[in-house]
C-alpha cells in the first residue's frame, strides 16, 4: 500500500510540477515574429504563422485553421496595437485555450516593448483606420527587433523553464549577430539619409525613421482607403514641388496606383518585401533588412 501511495503521490507531483514541453507550440501572428521565434526557439518549437507576407493583416478572418492552431498554442506572439483587432480576439474566445488569453504569459504582444511612432492625439475614424496606440508596424527598425527579442526570450523562458538555457544561448547568439548586422546596415545606409519617398500605406514609418529618410506623400488618401484618381492627381502636383526618389509599397499592395504615379512622376515604383517571405530573397530577418537596403540603395544611385 505505501509504495502504491508513493506512486500516486509521484504521479500527482509530476502533474502539478511545471510542465516540461518536448516542443513549445507557438502561434505567430505575422511572419516577422515567426522568424524571431525560430531564431530563439530553434528546433524546440512547433511554429505556425497565421499570415504570410502577401496578406494584409487587417483583413484576416478567424478561419478554422487559425482557431485550431490557437487552441493548441502554448504561446501566441503577435504585434498588438490593434493590428490584429479584427481576428485575434475571436481566436482567443473561440479557441477554448486559457493560455493565450490577454494577460496570460502565453499571450505576447510585441508592440508593448517598443516606443511607437505616430501616436494620434485624437482617435476618430474620420482620420481613416488609425491605430489608437500608435503605428503597429514596428519590425522595420532593428533596435525594436532587439528589444522584442530580449522580451520574447524572457517570456519563452518563463513559459518553458526546462529549455531556458537553450533559449538564452540562442538569444545571445542572435543578438550578437544582430548588433553586428545593425552596424553594417547603418554604414551601408548612410547614402539614404534624407531620401524622399512616397509610401502606399504608413507601414514603412519605422524604416523611414531609423534611416533618416522622408515620407513626402501617401498613395492612400487616408489610412485604409484605397488610392483614388483625385488623390493621385493631387499627389502628382505635390511631387512636382517636393520630388520623391521612389514610390514604396509592400508585396500585398495592389501595384496599379503606384505604377500610374511612377509613370507620370517619372519616379520608380519599388516593391519592398516588408516582412519575411515578401520575396524569394527574404527568408529571414537578416535577409529582409539586407534586401530592403539593397533595393533602396539601387534606386538612390
Amino acid at each position, binding site marked *: 500500500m505505501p509504495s502504491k501511495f508513493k506512486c500516486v503521490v509521484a504521479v500527482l507531483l509530476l502533474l502539478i510540477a511545471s510542465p516540461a514541453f518536448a516542443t513549445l507550440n507557438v502561434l505567430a501572428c505575422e511572419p516577422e515574429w515567426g522568424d524571431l521565434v525560430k531564431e530563439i526557439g530553434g528546433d524546440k518549437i512547433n511554429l505556425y504563422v497565421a*499570415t*504570410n507576407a*502577401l*496578406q*494584409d493583416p*487587417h*483583413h*484576416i*478572418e*478567424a*478561419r*478554422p*485553421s487559425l*482557431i*485550431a*492552431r490557437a*487552441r*493548441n498554442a502554448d504561446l501566441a506572439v503577435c504585434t498588438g496595437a*490593434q493590428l490584429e*483587432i*479584427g*481576428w485575434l*480576439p*475571436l481566436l*482567443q*474566445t*473561440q*479557441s*477554448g*485555450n*486559457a493560455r493565450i*488569453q*490577454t*494577460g496570460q504569459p502565453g499571450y505576447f504582444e510585441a508592440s508593448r516593448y517598443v*516606443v*511607437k*511612432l505616430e*501616436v*494620434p*492625439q485624437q482617435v476618430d*475614424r474620420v482620420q481613416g*483606420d488609425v491605430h*489608437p*496606440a*500608435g503605428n503597429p508596424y514596428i519590425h522595420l527598425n532593428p533596435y525594436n527587433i532587439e528589444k522584442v527579442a530580449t522580451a520574447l526570450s524572457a517570456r519563452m523562458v518563463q513559459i518553458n523553464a526546462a529549455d531556458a538555457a537553450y533559449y538564452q544561448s540562442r538569444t545571445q547568439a542572435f543578438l550578437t549577430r544582430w548588433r553586428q548586422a545593425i552596424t553594417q546596415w547603418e554604414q551601408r545606409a548612410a547614402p539614404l539619409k534624407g531620401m524622399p519617398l512616397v509610401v502606399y500605406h504608413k507601414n514603412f514609418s519605422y524604416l523611414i525613421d531609423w534611416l533618416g529618410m522622408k515620407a513626402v506623400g501617401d498613395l492612400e488618401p487616408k489610412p*485604409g*482607403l*484605397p488610392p483614388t484618381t483625385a488623390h493621385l492627381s493631387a499627389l502628382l502636383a505635390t511631387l512636382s514641388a517636393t520630388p520623391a526618389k521612389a514610390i514604396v509599397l509592400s508585396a*500585398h499592395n*495592389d501595384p496599379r496606383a503606384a505604377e500610374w504615379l511612377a509613370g507620370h512622376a517619372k519616379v520608380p515604383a519599388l516593391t519592398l518585401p516588408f516582412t519575411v517571405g515578401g520575396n524569394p530573397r527574404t527568408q529571414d530577418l537578416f535577409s529582409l533588412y539586407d534586401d530592403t537596403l539593397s533595393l533602396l540603395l539601387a534606386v538612390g544611385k
Partner: protein
Amino acid sequence: MLKSNLVAAAILFAFASPVRAQDAELAKIRAEIEQIKQAYEQRIGALEKRLAEADAKAGKAEKAAANAEVAATSVANRSGENAFNPAMSLVLQGTYARTSNDPDKFQITGFVPSGGEVGPPKRSFGLGETELAIASNIDPYFRGVAIVSLASEGGASIEEAYFQTLALPSGFIAKGGRYFSGIGYLNKLHQHAWDFQDAPLPYKAFLGNKLRQDGLQLKWIAPTDLLVELGAELASGDQFPGSDRNKNGVGGSSIFGHVGGDIGASYAWRTGLSYLKTSPRDRSYVDTDSLSNPVVNSFTGSAKLWVADAVLKWAPNGNSTHTNFKLQGEYFRSTQNGQLTYDDSAGSGVFGALSNQFGSRQSGWYLQGVYQFMPQWRVGYRYDRLNFGKVNNGIVLNGTGPGAADFPTLAPYNPSRNTLMFDWSLTEFSRLRLQFAADKSRLGATDNQMFVQYIYSLGAHRAHQF
C-alpha cells in the same frame, strides 16, 4: 664719418639682431599660435559635432517623450471608474424597399409559419434593426456579451446576452444565457453581417430567421491541426420550431460538429452537421378556413431538424483585400410528429376544436456565391428552395371534418427564390447594398423585390467571423 656710420651701423645692428631674434621668436610664436589655433579648431569642431549629435538625440528623445506623454495621458484617462468600460459598438441599418406583393401578406406556403419576422421589410423607406453590442472580459474566468436589438417600431429585444468561459482546460468552452445556436453556418451571424438583406428561405421556414437559445452550450475543440469542433446545447426550446412550454426540464437540445481547414494559402473551408430536437407544446398559428374565417391551429409533439452546412472561401494567396470569393450552402431536413388541434371557435365555430395526428417530413436548401471583383465592390447570387415533402395531416385525412382547403398555409407547394445583390463598402464600417429578388415563397404571384440597404457600424471594431 665712417666711425659714426660704423657706430650707427653697430647700433642699428645691435637693434637689428634682437629684431631678427625677435623675428625668429615672432615666427616661433606665430607657429605656436597657428598650432594652438589648429588644435582649438579641431576641438571646437569635435565639440560641434558632439553638440549636433546630442541635439539629434534630444530631438528623438523629445519625440519619444511626446509619444510617451500621449500614451500616458491615454493611460491616465484609463484610470478611474471608467477604466474597465466594456467595448461598445452600434450598428445602424435601414432600407428602401419596393415589393410587388404586400409585405404584410407574406407567407411561405406549404410550411407551418415560424412566427418570426420573416417577411420583406416594409415598403418605401424604413428603419432596420439598430443593434447595440456590449462586450468585455468579466474576470480571468469569464467573458460577457450582450447584443440588444432596438426595433424600428420601438422596444428593445435582447438578441444575445451570455457569459462564456475563458479558462476551461482541454479546449472546452461553456456558454450560458441567451445566444444564437451553433447549428448550421449562418445561424450564428447577425443580420448586418449577412451577405444579403434577408435570411435564406430554409432559415425563414424552419427557424424563424435564426434560432436563439436560452440555456447552456458546451463546445469542445479537438487538439488537432484540422479544426474539429463539437458542441451540445441544452435549452428551454421556446423558439420555433419549439414553443414556450411551462414545463420542467429541457425543452430543446442540439448537437453539432464542424470540421474546417485550409487548402494551400488561398482556400479556407468549413463543413458541419447539426441536429436540433425540440418538444413544442401548443405551438399555435393563425390561419383561415375555406370560408376565410380565422382558425387557430396548435401543434404538440416533437420537431426535429437536421442541418448540413458547407462554406468555401477563396482569396489570392489568402489576401482578401482586392478580390475574394465565398461559396456557401446549407441543407435542412425537418421532421415533425405529434398532435395538431384545429380550432375554429373564434371564427365560424362549425367544427370547434378537433385534434388528430400530424406528421411532416420536409426539407429545404440554399446555395449562394459572393464575389468581390474589385476593392469595395461585391456581387452575390443566391438560390433558395424548399421541398414540401410529405405532410400527413390527420384532421384532413379523417375525411369527416375540415378539408385540405381549410389549411391554406399548408397547401402542397415548393417555394423558391432567386436573389441578386451588389454591395459597395467604402470601408469595412460602411456598406450600401442593392438587392433584387424574384420571390416565389407564396403560392400565387411571384413577388418582385428591390431593396436598397445601408449598414453602418461605429464604436469598437467588430470581429471578422469566418
